[in-house]
């Protein structure tokens, strides 16, 4: 297949200078590790040892009116400092939390209050904040606060919401927050005209990010300066800053927000402002003391965010070859008690569902419904796993119906390399068209077949049967829109010491940004990576940013930083050219030294150029003194030329025309013990394409992590709410996050179709590993047991029940195998 080669159109500068390959693309060992492996990371709870501690009284009921809050019992607790309820909030703080992403189809949005205003809508909703000398004391006080409730009827689960026997929000009797609808043609006649049609319903259950570090906020008010500094374990510092300023009625310049080291996010920390992100600063200002709150594990389960639950009704029309002619999908999406993040997850499901395929006519309706449970906001994949599950299980069904190989059916539907840019005529989560920029989907499929040994499936099944085990092979493909805008920025500055400071406003939660961004600058600028220091997520250093989500950091900040570094390089060469009396084109920078190509003696260190770039009156040290001597004294020109600025630094932004589309394909081989129905993933294969790669070691790590979450979501993780809206497994004892023993070894093959949309040609990689996991494993299990899998995750008990149930549907493939005496 011909690799796509296109000029870099679409970037703001129209430039696409070749990046030197010095460090870009190398598996450079991470800079952040040095502090992390010796316990010198600075996570939220490591900060502020003298701070007061906050704790919360949270609702034990899923739906209730608050009749009374009696704090009397808490007042005697030694060490208690303050108690806050809704009555203590005023102005913008007394208003509901913001709907971050409004949308015309989000017709009935609802958000909570920082502290419950007379009503609670999920177990865990905060009602009272207690501030005390330490967390133990704060919890003592919280325990003694007596809240009286009038319990209300509870709505749980997507089906419960649909049935609408009860309403979560009284004024929304059908529990529908939004009805998202996209269509590319007339689906009903297309289905009617299709040679074959199939309809089926399936479910995917709720899971959650569960990073190892929960949320946390530390706030410090400087009364002399009337300014606030907030540390928060967030994925969006600049936006939290804006929210705090707005809600606490402070001027933006008087609020700083810093994301410290963050122990994982996976999406849950993109939502903001959390009640605590507003309340802790409020208390800090109010009390004139530092205040800190660190979430415990139970709080994280019942008061952060979940994701994934959907009911999907799918009707597909196809021909004798398995080519899809029409697809009609109706999804009900459980959004929990409130909609702070709008309908992003439903939109992502709706638009990413089409995957790598040509879908001539497509209609999708996603109804986002309220339940009395924790809010639903992005979890790695953010709706893509659900979309992939819908599409890929449809492909499996088509293959099953026609008696065709599942890989072959997919192949016949794939968009081919000559069809790019491919317009699906849908609108993505960034408000821009879903136009795939580049990719090679047949290439992915070929590589995957080879990697997993797809053609060996029958033999493997027979071998396993001989050992008394059931074996199945499954696969799933996906396309992932990454790097949505609106923009990110980068700042690069060379100091007179030779140190190169790099900053960007978005945040890090373990993706190795300090390394990857340093690699980009080292390659662009020709400086040793050891001289580079990267800061992310600190509004003091970079004030304009969006955040880390949708696999966008490398694409957005990576490109912005590259552009900033190029700006620095251009200026450095211009200044050096003047000093060395050469032309800028004849100069090169290597190891921090600017020299005339081929003339080693004629050179000037980059750090000296940095000093020269700032014309000085006062020589405050040796380097500065040298610079004043080096400087040319041309009194026909001003020291700082018009349009120029002092300093060797540059700030630049990358704002994409639209998202760039990464892709991949996964396959799983499962073995099932027919005595215990335990499901063992014995092989897991990944073929992965994220365009050009900054650091392959980091990308592979992202894939590993994503696969573990995919396996977890397919076999182990499920939020178990009972009919009263109680989360029965709000701890790691009962919410089964995979240990090493549950995660299979992962075989990875790579493909690179660079993105033509950005200067570095990169696509996002953060979520790829998790997207097709549930679909691929469902496919494999179904292949092994010959029964329709219609709900994921699936446990051994559920599998046993399924196989034993006379009403469960046998697959046509299994019937064929049984009929021919072949292994089933």
């Amino acid at each position, binding site marked *: 297949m011909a690799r796509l080669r296109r000029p870099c159109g679409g970037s703001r500068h129209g430039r696409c200078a070749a990046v030197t390959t010095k460090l870009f693309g190398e598996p450079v060992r991470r800079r952040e*590790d040095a502090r992390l492996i*010796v*316990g010198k990371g600075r996570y939220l709870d490591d900060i502020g040892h003298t701070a007061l501690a906050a704790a919360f009284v949270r609702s034990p009921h899923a739906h209730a009116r608050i009749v009374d809050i009696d704090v009397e019992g808490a007042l005697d607790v030694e060490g208690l400092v303050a108690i806050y309820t809704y009555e203590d909030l005023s102005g913008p703080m007394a208003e509901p939390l913001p709907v971050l992403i409004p949308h015309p189809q989000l017709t009935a949005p609802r958000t909570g209050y920082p502290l419950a205003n007379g009503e609670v809508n999920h177990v865990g909703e905060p009602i009272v904040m207690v501030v005390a000398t330490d967390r133990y004391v704060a919890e003592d006080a919280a325990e003694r606060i007596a809240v009286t409730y009038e319990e209300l009827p509870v709505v749980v689960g997507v089906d419960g919401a649909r049935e609408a026997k009860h309403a979560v929000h009284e004024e929304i009797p059908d529990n529908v927050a939004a009805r998202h609808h996209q269509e590319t043609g007339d689906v009903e006649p297309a289905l009617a005209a299709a040679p074959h049609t199939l309809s089926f319903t399936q479910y995917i259950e709720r899971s959650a990010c569960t990073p190892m570090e929960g949320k946390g906020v530390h706030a410090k008010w400087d009364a002399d300066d009337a300014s606030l500094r907030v540390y928060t374990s967030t994925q969006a510092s600049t936006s939290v800053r804006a929210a705090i300023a707005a809600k606490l009625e402070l001027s933006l310049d008087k609020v700083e927000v810093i994301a410290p080291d963050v*122990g994982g996010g996976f999406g849950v920390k993109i939502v903001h402002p959390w009640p605590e992100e507003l309340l802790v600063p409020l208390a800090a200002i109010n009390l004139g003391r530092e205040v800190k709150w660190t979430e415990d594990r139970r709080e994280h389960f019942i008061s952060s965010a979940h994701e994934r639950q959907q009911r999907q009704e799918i009707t597909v029309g196809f021909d004798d070859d398995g080519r899809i002619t029409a697809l009609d999908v109706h999804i009900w999406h459980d959004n929990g008690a409130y909609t702070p993040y709008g309908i992003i997850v439903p939109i992502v499901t709706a638009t990413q569902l089409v995957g790598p395929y040509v879908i001539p006519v497509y209609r999708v309706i996603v109804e986002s419904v309220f339940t009395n449970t924790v809010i639903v906001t992005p979890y790695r994949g953010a709706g893509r796993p659900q979309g992939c599950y819908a599409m890929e299980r449809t492909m499996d069904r088509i293959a099953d119906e026609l008696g065709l190989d599942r890989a072959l059916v997919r192949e016949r539907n794939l968009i081919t390399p000559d069809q790019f840019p491919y317009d699906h005529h849908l609108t993505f989560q960034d408000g821009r068209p879903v136009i795939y920029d580049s990719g090679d989907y047949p290439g992915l499929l070929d590589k995957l077949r080879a990697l997993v040994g797809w053609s060996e499936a029958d033999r493997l099944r027979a071998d396993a049967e001989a050992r008394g085990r059931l074996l199945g092979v499954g696969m799933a493909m996906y396309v992932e829109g990454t790097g949505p805008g609106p923009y990110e920025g980068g700042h690069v500055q060379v100091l007179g010491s030779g140190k190169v400071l790099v900053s960007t406003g978005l945040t890090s939660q373990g993706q190795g940004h300090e390394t990857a961004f340093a690699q980009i600058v080292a390659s662009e600028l020709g400086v040793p990576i050891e001289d580079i220091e990267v800061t992310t997520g600190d509004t003091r250093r970079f004030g304009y940013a969006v955040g880390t989500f949708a696999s966008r950091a490398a694409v957005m900040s990576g490109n912005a930083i590259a552009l900033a570094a190029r700006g620095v390089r251009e200026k450095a060469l211009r200044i050096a050219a003047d000093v060395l009396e050469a032309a800028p084109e004849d100069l090169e920078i290597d190891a921090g030294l600017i020299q005339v190509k081929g003339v080693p003696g004629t050179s000037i260190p980059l750090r000296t150029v940095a000093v020269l770039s700032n014309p000085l009156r006062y020589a405050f040290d040796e380097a500065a003194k040298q610079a004043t001597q080096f400087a040319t004294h041309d009194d026909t020109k001003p020291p700082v030329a018009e349009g120029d600025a002092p300093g060797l630094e540059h700030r630049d932004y990358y704002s994409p025309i639209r998202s760039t589309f990464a892709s991949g394909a996964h396959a799983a081989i499962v073995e099932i013990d027919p005595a215990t129905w335990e499901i063992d993933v014995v092989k897991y294969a990944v073929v992965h394409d994220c365009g050009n790669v900054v650091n392959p070691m980091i990308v592979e790590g992202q894939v*590993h992590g994503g696969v573990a979450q995919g396996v977890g979501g397919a076999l182990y993780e499920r939020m178990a709410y009972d009919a009263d809206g109680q989360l029965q497994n709000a*701890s*790691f004892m009962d919410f089964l996050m995979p240990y090493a023993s549950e995660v299979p070894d992962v075989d990875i093959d790579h493909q690179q179709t660079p993105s033509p949309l950005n200067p570095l040609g990169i696509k996002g990689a953060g979520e790829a590993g998790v997207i097709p996991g549930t679909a691929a494993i469902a496919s494999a299990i179904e292949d092994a047991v010959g029964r329709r899998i219609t709900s994921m995750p699936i446990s051994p008990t559920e599998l046993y029940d399924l196989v034993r149930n006379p009403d469960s549907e046998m697959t046509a493939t299994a019937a064929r195998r049984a009929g021919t005496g072949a292994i089933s």
Partner: protein
Amino acid sequence: MTVDTERTITVTVNGVPREATVPVRRLLSDALRHDLGLTGTHVGCEHGVCGACTVLVDGDPVRSCLMLAVQVDGRAVTTVEGLAREDKRGGQVLHPVQEAFRECHALQCGFCTPGFLMTIAAGLDKRDPAAELTEEEVDDMVGGNLCRCTGYANIKKAVHHAAATMRDAQ
């Protein structure tokens, strides 16, 4: 009968005798982090499942969130801050498992890392370095700690890498 609400404990932490007066209900994890200022040990669940809080008490890996600080009175505790050794010139020599984690990209956010490092270090330090490392041993050393970022693949690689380093150093 009066009941203590506080007790003064003496505990050797990373080779240094430390004294602290702590509420008797204070968890060891909190005492290490907040009373002794050693924030390298992290708290992930407070119910003993995730292992992020793992420290060594008299050489054995223990979930510090499931111990009370008063239980280590008179004992020796090692935390991640004490894993590296000081060299003769006052610098630091990392434990092979620390080097291995960096070399093998066995950490991403780093929050679970101290717990893994302590558990694996204890396992490696106890075994005969000349013996060939088995997969069973690796599973044993990594199987009790949760990581949400890495998918464990590189953590297992790091164990192999560290064991090989220790074997070659003999």
